[in-house]
């Protein structure tokens, strides 16, 4: 392709965080009017690359070229000036303002006397809307719009600044099917108008449908650059995971169902806002049930509902045959359900408190009391037992949990549940951001629990982990359970294909 057709090029990018290499010699280029998809597993380096392009991180080595000229991007303003706009997942629109006010925020056209020229501003917005065929009106107050339309405003805002390159990071993650279709239509229009798009997504079908080219990153390196006709689902999955498929790397496993009687029975659970629907499954005593699927498939929402945080619109949950009425976290705890949330730092523990206090918080009902006050001695005893059970090193019960390593923090969260008589433990992304050694220890803790008859539900996006710990695997996709793997050999590709909604084909299972 001709040189002058390349709008952005990143050459030989290196980046490491405290000695750990995240990007190694990565090349990435985007042509004018191209939708260039960027894929890779969690931790492959996609977001680091984007953050370097948008000036959030500085690169260790390498050079970025914009329209053929070398450029330095040190902050987001720099990249805006060049004509790059990032459509953030967390929307940054201002709800009380109108569409036009949002699009021209901080750059409103004015008449004499510093009065905003609303007529002109609405007209300018309307021109943009017409040009790119957006289903919006300049004068609508954003408050009245759905999430999808709010996202379109962000895109419009980028376009109003004459952006030539839009970066979309998982743009469909919070959109409904219809909203996503609208977005795809707009992406196609933008492409025709010569706007380039970097499209980051885990959803293969979207990438397949939209992109002109696809760059795949694996372990911080370029794994492949595919032209449109080369984008074949099975091949993409294989490239993302890496070709070396052997048992020791944990990419393949013989599943064996374990466990006794049914412990948890979920019948027809359906979410209020349709993030999961009509979900039925069972977990047995002593079984570790893994939930696979893409981020946003509804797994976290499902386990939150089972634990009683969110109220489902219909469906029932039975624990050991007993129906859970009006579920709440308090009731769940009383009934012997433990929950290790996905967002450890914000939902899992209290950073400023010590291990002792964190462990005690969930267990005040079983701690001995001196009159009305909790016995300090009993509290400390429990903390010591927890530290021993989960092997926290160094074993200082008074240390603030906030300053510990991620692995130790997660152990504290697990430890407080181990002090109880658990019947069911739900863990959501148990080892995100935790080093390999601690991961193994956490797996052993889960396995230990299962061997004692506790039913365990593990939600994880880490395929290796899913295969490593699960006795049985359910895969969710867009709010439905689409696949069950049990008593069979399962590979990472099979799980990924099911989560992507790729039609089952046997070569992927090879």
């Amino acid at each position, binding site marked *: 392709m001709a040189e002058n057709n390349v709008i952005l090029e990143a050459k030989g990018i290196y980046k490491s965080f405290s000695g750990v290499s995240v990007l190694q010699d990565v090349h990435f280029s985007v042509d004018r009017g191209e939708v260039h998809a960027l894929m890779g597993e969690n931790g492959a380096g996609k977001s680091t690359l984007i953050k370097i392009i948008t000036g959030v991180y500085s690169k260790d080595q390498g050079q970025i070229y914009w329209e053929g000229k070398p450029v330095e991007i040190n902050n*987001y*303003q720099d990249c805006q000036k060049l004509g790059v706009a990032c459509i953030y997942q967390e929307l*940054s*629109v*201002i*709800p*009380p*303002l109108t569409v036009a*006010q949002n699009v021209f*925020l*901080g*750059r*409103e056209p*004015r008449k004499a006397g*510093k*009065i*905003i020229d*609303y007529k002109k501003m609405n007209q300018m917005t309307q021109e943009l809307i017409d040009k790119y065929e957006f*289903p919006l009106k300049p004068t609508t*107050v954003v*408050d*009245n*719009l*759905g*999430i*999808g*339309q*709010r996202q*379109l405003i962000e895109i419009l805002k980028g376009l109003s600044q004459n952006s030539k390159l839009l970066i979309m990071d998982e743009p469909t993650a919070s*959109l*409904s*099917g*219809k*909203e996503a*279709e*609208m977005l795809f239509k707009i992406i196609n229009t933008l492409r025709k108008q010569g706007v380039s798009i970097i499209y980051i997504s885990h959803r293969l079908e979207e990438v397949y449908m939209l992109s002109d080219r696809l760059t795949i990153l694996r372990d911080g390196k370029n794994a492949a650059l595919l032209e449109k006709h080369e984008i074949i689902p099975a091949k993409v999955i294989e490239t993302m995971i890496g070709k070396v498929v052997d048992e020791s790397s944990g990419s393949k496993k013989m599943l064996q169902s374990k466990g006794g009687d049914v412990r948890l029975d979920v019948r027809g659970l359906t979410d209020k*806002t*349709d993030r999961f629907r009509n979900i039925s499954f069972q977990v047995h005593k002593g079984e570790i049930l893994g939930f696979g699927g893409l981020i946003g498939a509804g797994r976290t929402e499902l386990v939150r509902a089972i634990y009683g945080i969110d109220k489902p619109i219909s469906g029932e949950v039975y624990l050991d045959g007993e129906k859970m009425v009006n579920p709440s976290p308090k009731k769940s705890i009383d009934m012997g359900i433990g929950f290790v949330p996905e967002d450890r730092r914000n939902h899992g523990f209290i950073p400023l408190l010590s291990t002792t206090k964190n462990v005690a918080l969930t267990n005040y009902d079983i701690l001995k009391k001196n009159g009305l006050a909790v016995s300090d001695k009993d509290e400390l005893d429990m903390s010591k037992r927890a530290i021993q059970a989960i092997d926290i090193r160094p074993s200082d019960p008074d240390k603030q949990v906030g300053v510990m390593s991620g692995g130790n923090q997660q152990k504290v969260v697990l430890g407080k549940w181990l002090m109880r008589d658990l019947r069911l433990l739900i863990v959501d992304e148990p080892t995100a951001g935790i080093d390999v050694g601690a991961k193994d220890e956490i797996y052993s803790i889960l396995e230990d629990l299962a061997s004692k008859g506790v039913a365990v539900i593990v939600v994880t996006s880490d395929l290796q982990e899913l295969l490593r710990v699960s006795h049985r695997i359910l895969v969710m996709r867009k709010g439905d359970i689409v696949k069950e793997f049990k008593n069979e050999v399962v590979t990472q590709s099979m799980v990924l294909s099911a989560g992507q909604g790729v039609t089952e084909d046997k070569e992927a299972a090879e």
Partner: protein
Amino acid sequence: MKEMNQTTLRRLISVGLLAILIALFTAMVGAGSGKFLNAENLMAIVRDASVPGIIGVGVTYVIITSGIDLSTGSMIALVGMVMANVYAYTLLPIPVMILTGILAGLLCGFFNGFIVAKLEIPEFIGTLATMSVFRALAYIIAIKDANGVIMSQPMNVSQYAFLGSTIGGSSKGIPYVCVALVIFVVVGQIVLRYTRFGTNLYAVGANKKAATLSGINVERIRMMAFVITGFCTAVGAVFTTARLQSATTALGTDFEFSPIAAAVVGGVALSGGSGDVVGTLIGALFMATLENGVRKLDMNTAYQYVIKGVIIICVVMFDAVYKKRMDRIAKEKGAKEGLE
């Protein structure tokens, strides 16, 4: 079908509340001279609403940026006392005395803005501290007699006192303070709706990060909101002292509460990013009507504070519930209708 947007609905509710209150008192106290519903009494209500309304313009700006200013009551006392000092100890003309008072208000506002926006002290605690500081300063500079006992300083020269009365001076005329109220509300609303500064106030209150990314100087906007509050409060202080024809250290004891209450009742959400000056005006009228009616009913005035408190709790609760509902509707709308 076109749905009513949140701002319009909220405006209807505050207007409705005011209408209901007026109807209620009319039914209980009656219409006609000496009763509740007559021109003279309605004018009295507007007059009582004026100072909270004027201060409310600035307070509205601060609350829209998701801030709060608790120090306005003490600021009135301090500004009043500064003017009393100029009045008692200098021969400066009255307009200069007023300007000195306004300058004092601007300084107080600037100080609030500085500690909140520059030093990043949380608004609530920062202005709680200055509320105490300003009141103490008013005591320190208060006019004292030979024994050091604070005395109230009469300021009854007609050049000044006329500001506390009506145009033409008759008891049936329009009070000057009401004219000031109209000017403040009109200008305040235009600035809010038709200037970049106004739009920026909403942006800062609704989403500071997004505002920064749009190139808005968040620190400066927050600071400006406090300075404007200082200015409005100083003007409020001028009219209050002119009406009382004296300045005391106890001035404005209820005035940290009433502008905030007016704003909240009028639809300025404490979470920031919504409401406007006209809403605050309606809220101020509501509060003044309530006070007036309770007085006419010969009820213990303490009740009015109970009623005010209960109303504020209800309104804030409504706003919270309503916001949740709107967020849910936005989500469900997306799920059901797509983008049509």
